[in-house]
């Protein structure tokens, strides 16, 4: 048990593990928001189609991916629990009703595509079509509210900042979803995706600006973080990425558009983590180092994660290359 003994006393290779796990936590969240984000975006854009064949194509576009994408949320929950259990417990019990609303919304989004394909009749499809749209819209909205509450350490469930943040995240998922459809569709679907994507990108920029402005003016304790060059840089980067997104979409460079959409998501999540750092639970006044688990399990988790996460990336490469390219016209969701 000597190896275990040394694992118990010192952080692995002397690394700043609490900070690394904070970064990993937000990285996982960003992966979820980027990957499942395009599923949500496609679900929202589902509302713009009334042709059944086009609806089927949208479902077929996300069909093979969304299960895997959603797992990033499960891993996010697990990672928060494993590395910062007190924060996990505080956050989820503090925003109790909001958490259940998120779960209900995710439930609708998850069931809808599967159910939609089970029956051919119009009524049934209309119902599950709505369920898909509602689930795909409310989930990112509520997640935005949750994250804003987390950042501010808010005691109330609903605030203006939270609503604005929710709307911004909804716009971001449309930006993401439209970029994904740029890769996966052709013809009218792709042209419309471009139009909606550009509008959503402008909307996202406006909403993010408003949200950040409001948070800056109402939360003095966060002001010093706002003034750090990294945060200012991220805000500027977001503006630049939105411009790049619009340009790339207009010039029909769809792969580039998709990469920029990913960049926007990662910029937002980095901004969030940067504003929060080094606090991880403002309401309970816990910093990263207060809330982190003890050295032995942290070292073990680090070893496990550094083996497993590269594997997970491998699975995603296999999956995304198996289903690369635009969906074929007879492909359906089943």
């Amino acid at each position, binding site marked *: 048990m000597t190896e275990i003994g040394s694992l118990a006393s010192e952080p692995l290779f002397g690394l700043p593990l609490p900070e690394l796990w904070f970064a990993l936590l937000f990285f996982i969240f960003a992966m979820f928001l980027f990957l499942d984000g395009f599923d949500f975006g496609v679900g929202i854009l589902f509302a713009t189609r009334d042709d059944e064949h086009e609806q089927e194509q949208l479902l077929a576009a996300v069909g*093979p991916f969304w299960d895997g994408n959603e*797992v990033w949320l499960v891993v996010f*929950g697990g990672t928060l629990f*494993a590395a910062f259990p007190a924060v996990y*417990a505080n956050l989820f*019990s503090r925003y109790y009703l909001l958490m259940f609303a998120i779960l209900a919304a995710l439930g609708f989004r998850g069931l809808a595509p599967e*159910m939609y394909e089970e029956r051919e009749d119009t009524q049934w499809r209309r119902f599950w079509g709505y369920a898909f749209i509602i689930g795909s819209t409310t989930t990112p909205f509520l997640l935005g509210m949750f994250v804003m509450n987390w950042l501010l350490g808010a005691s109330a469930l609903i605030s203006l900042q939270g609503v604005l943040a929710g709307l911004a995240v909804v716009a971001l998922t449309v930006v993401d979803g439209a970029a994904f459809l740029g890769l996966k569709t052709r013809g009218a679907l792709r042209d419309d995706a471009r139009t909606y994507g550009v509008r959503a990108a402008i909307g996202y920029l406006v909403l993010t600006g408003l949200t950040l402005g409001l948070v800056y003016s109402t939360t003095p304790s966060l002001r010093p973080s706002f003034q750090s060059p990294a945060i200012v840089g991220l805000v500027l980067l977001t503006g630049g990425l939105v411009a790049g997104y619009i340009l790339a979409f207009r010039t029909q460079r769809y792969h580039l558009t998709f990469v920029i959409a990913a960049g926007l998501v990662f910029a937002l999540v980095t901004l969030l983590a940067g504003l929060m750092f080094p606090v991880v639970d403002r309401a309970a006044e816990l910093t990263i180092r207060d809330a982190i*688990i003890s050295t032995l399990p942290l070292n073990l988790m680090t070893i496990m994660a550094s083996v*497993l996460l590269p594997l997970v990336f491998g699975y995603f490469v296999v999956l995304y290359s198996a289903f690369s390219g635009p969906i074929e016209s*007879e492909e359906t969701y089943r």
Partner: protein
Amino acid sequence: MVDPVIASRLQFAITTIVHIIFPVMSMGLAPFLIYFTWKEVRSEQPIYEQLRRFWTRIFAVSFVVGTVTGLVLEFEFGTNFAAFSTTAGELFGGPLALEGMMAFMLEATFLGIFVFGRERVSDRLYFLSSIAVGLGTWLSAVWILIANSWMQTPRGFEVVVENGHRVVKLTDPLAAYLNPRFPYMFVHMQNSAVESVALFMAGVAAYYVFRHHVWGYPIEHIGFWEKTLKIALVALLITAPLQVLHGDAYARHVYETQPQKFAAMEAVWETESYVPEYIVAFPTDVNDLLDPRTKDLFGIGIPGGASWLASGGDPQATIRGLESFDTQAPPVAIVFWAFRIMVALGFWFILLAFWGAYRWWRGELFEDDLLHKALMGSSLLGFVAVEVGWIVTEVGRQPWVIQGVMKTEAGVSPGLTGAEATFTLLGFVTGYALLLGLYTYVVSRLIRAGPPADEDLQSSADSTATESEVTTSD
């Protein structure tokens, strides 16, 4: 308003009782799907493609509903049992995170290929993805049962006080994660999942075989159902006897490590030796109905049976009675009856397996209408056995959430109000009832629709060539 502690416990009970159905379905189907896929890729007999495609549909629906309900479960530790999560998070959170990273990721990503990718990937990758999906479902169970078994027989930790909270600190990971209960739980759980699915398959297939061979209805794809019935019977013949064998070892292990739970299973109030194993027991007074071992008891029992089971062969062995523990007994009647139902079902499944095997050997498998009726009637009983088994495990360990370390009532979120908890409880009762109804409806539709028609099968000839010509028009 319901008390937040009671509401949280009820809510957790409901969410687990509903959730377990879907992982049992996917864990149990996994080995069958791997087998079907292997035969499909190797032999190219259309029947295996039919089997694979038919049962994959049911797997996919179960997976979706399982994800929806499982996500709830993961988050409920934080929402309703925040005090438990804060105290035990260091030990308990790790397995949950690893379940996500190691198991669920594998299952969910390769499920995309397995469900949508038959025409997109090579046979080899397709077969590998069936293994990846199956491995994912089983690895999920590994991590979840590591977490659960640690709560039953906790090892490898110490309790320290940090900022006024009692916190569990991991000291010996091997002792904690390879704790004594884990192997019993894992073997019993996985075998029961395969057994439950085998029973389900057998019941569904028996319905069609019965209508065709006994009642003379013309049934499309009768060969498909005959094959399903045979495969299911083989699986049942393997799993049913095993389930009772390691169940017996498991019960002995409970006697050694959780004597209070064992006493509740047998409803032993006073410490005694030569304790009988009651097959049935009823109080003679109606008011004592919830206490299966009141003094005035009418019961049929095997003398010394419980002692014999507990000790592994000594009918004189002593069983410690519930009265002798410092903590209040778990709800004895629930544990006592749940245990009896589980054991009775276990033996019934063995009987079914041998009955079917005997008829098969005699060449009368498709003619015995009583056997078919028994199989149809038993198609969901595997799931019932799993449910009552978990009730024995989870109700039986009360009042402890972590055996001997933390009581369940102390684990509930401190800030939770009765109004919040009641609201979500009501939401779950209605939502989960609807979800179960929906799942039943969809699965029964799939079963009624039967396997894909022969002309839809891709291995049936040259349709693939013409298809690909149509699709290249961009």
